């Protein structure tokens, strides 16, 4: 009987939250389809996809996202592993450090980067590829809270210390432990961190705008200054990318859980 009782309070807030989220999104989507008078169609999307600047921004952002994820993973996995193994007391400190990008606005970060690296001895803003180094460094910092937490949760789900000791007693070096035991068991956590970082980088505006790089974020803003329907289409495309990332995450985590549905036989 209890299971069938409807919790009206929960239902009310659930519906309110859905409306709050979906109504503006639906409004944007609907608006993006009304470029041609009196007709619902994908004209705005066609124009966006036909614009070479969109593809340039898309390619650039994807490239930067992949590099960011690669460096973040290779930096955070060994660091968090080391922290768990050797300095577990440093965890609260890491918690504070990794939450800083939420507290310090991106604008402060980008001005800091520009002021520090636009003058000797490390003048990185002179060439596009050196500016890209700066932008990747910025992206790593912005995505740090997500990546750290994802890896941290993954590490918490396994007995890092005992697994490491078990592998060492079988002759493994540190590198082999990380490669054969720790990383394979953190696959899902790393994937989660990577996909959220990907979504963050793909929609990032401030860093790319101030460092004058052709990323997707600044392109969307520039479109918004002169066009009406295309920015709405771009917003929907951007949302779709994020959802696609989250969907992938959900798919892999469900698959991993599904694998564990076996009967234990004595």
């Amino acid at each position, binding site marked *: 009987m209890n299971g069938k009782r409807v919790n009206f309070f929960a239902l009310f807030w659930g519906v309110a939250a859905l409306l709050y989220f979906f109504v503006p999104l639906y409004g944007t989507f609907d608006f993006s389809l009304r470029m041609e008078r009196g007709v619902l169609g994908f004209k705005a999307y066609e124009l966006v996809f036909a614009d070479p600047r969109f593809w340039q921004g898309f390619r650039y952002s994807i490239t930067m996202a992949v590099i960011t994820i690669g460096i973040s993973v290779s930096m955070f996995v060994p660091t968090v592993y080391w922290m768990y193994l050797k300095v577990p007391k440093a965890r609260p400190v890491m918690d504070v450090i990794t939450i800083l990008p939420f507290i310090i606005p991106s604008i402060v970060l980008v001005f800091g980067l520009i002021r520090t690296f636009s003058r000797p001895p490390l003048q990185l803003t002179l060439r596009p590829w050196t500016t890209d180094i700066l932008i990747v460094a910025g992206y790593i910092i912005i995505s740090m809270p997500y990546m750290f937490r994802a890896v941290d949760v993954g590490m918490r789900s396994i007995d890092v210390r005992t697994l490491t*000791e*078990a592998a*060492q*007693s*079988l*002759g493994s070096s540190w590198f082999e432990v990380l490669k*054969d*035991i720790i990383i394979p068991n953190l696959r899902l956590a790393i994937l989660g961190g990577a996909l959220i970082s990907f979504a963050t980088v793909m929609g990032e505006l401030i860093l790319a705008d101030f460092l004058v790089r052709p990323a997707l974020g600044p392109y969307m803003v520039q479109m918004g200054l002169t066009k009406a329907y295309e920015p709405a289409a771009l917003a929907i495309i951007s949302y779709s990318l994020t959802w696609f990332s989250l969907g992938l995450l959900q798919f892999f985590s469900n698959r991993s859980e599904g*694998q564990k549905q*076996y009967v234990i036989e004595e």
Partner: protein
Amino acid sequence: MTHLELTHIKKSYGSTVAVEDFSITVEQGEFVSFLGPSGCGKTTTLRMVAGFELPNSGTIKLNSNDLTFIPPNQRNVGMVFQSYALFPNMTVSQNVGYGLKIAKKKKPEINARVEEMLALIHMERFATRFPYQLSGGQQQRVALARALAIQPEILLLDEPLSALDAKIRLELRQEIRRIQQKLGITTIYVTHDQEEALSLSDRIVVMSHGKIEQIGTPFETYNFPKTRFVANFVGSLNTAEVEVVNPKQGTMNMNGILLEASEGLDGKSKGDNVMVAIRPERFSFASEGKKENVLDCQIENITFLGSVVRIQIRIGNAKFNMDTFNRPSLELPKIGDRAQVTCSRKAVLILSD
């Protein structure tokens, strides 16, 4: 032949001393248990043998080679953990073969060894299963096979049965001993369970507060505890403080009741206070003709413990427990009855501090 030798090992964490002046030699193929309560330093000592902890002083030698500061992955020591520590991303056979893969053995050799190990633990059918598809007992069997697959010089087991239920624990205990004897591998076993230590070991090292209290065979440890701690920790025990009457004759006075011991009073003088201990099972109801330590008592309580009946008796002012087998023919007294109990002179143990 001495296989493993620990000499004057000391380990401290800040001002806390975990292990102090720990020395032991273990023979090839011997099964030695470190027994003691939580925090007595038994696991720390084992971890120093494995290389996961470094001693502050002292040496650890295996086959006369100094291992003290050798990293754990270069010691060729197999370790089984309380929490199994199977690699979740690997199947049973991959787990068992992992050490051999790391040692860069050829695939046919690895496969043959894995099959051999799975046959040893009777788990051939489970080769392709993942750890989460196995019960606790099965996981610990695989962990044992994994540790043995690399043909280690020495096998270390850190409370391997603690996380298992009673029935599986008993089965696996016998399995561990069978495999150890079959392979003749030198084994160090850490446990706080006296029954495990007594049933498995060739020798037991009883530890307390980081120090060795006694090293001996299970028979010696149980029947002739050297210290009050060992006597209390290994098996249940009755203790009482008595006054020495005649050290040569082994007579003592327990609140006006005369008690005799066969040995242990050397160096004691008349009037000295000593602590005596008597195991509950060494008491029996006195029959006619018994002359050693015949004591008047009153029955205070009777408790059935399955195969054993525990009778609480009062001798003078002191309360003692007496254990007797639960036979169908057993005629038990009633609570409040007066009776006579006896124990041999040998059963009266004189304890040092």
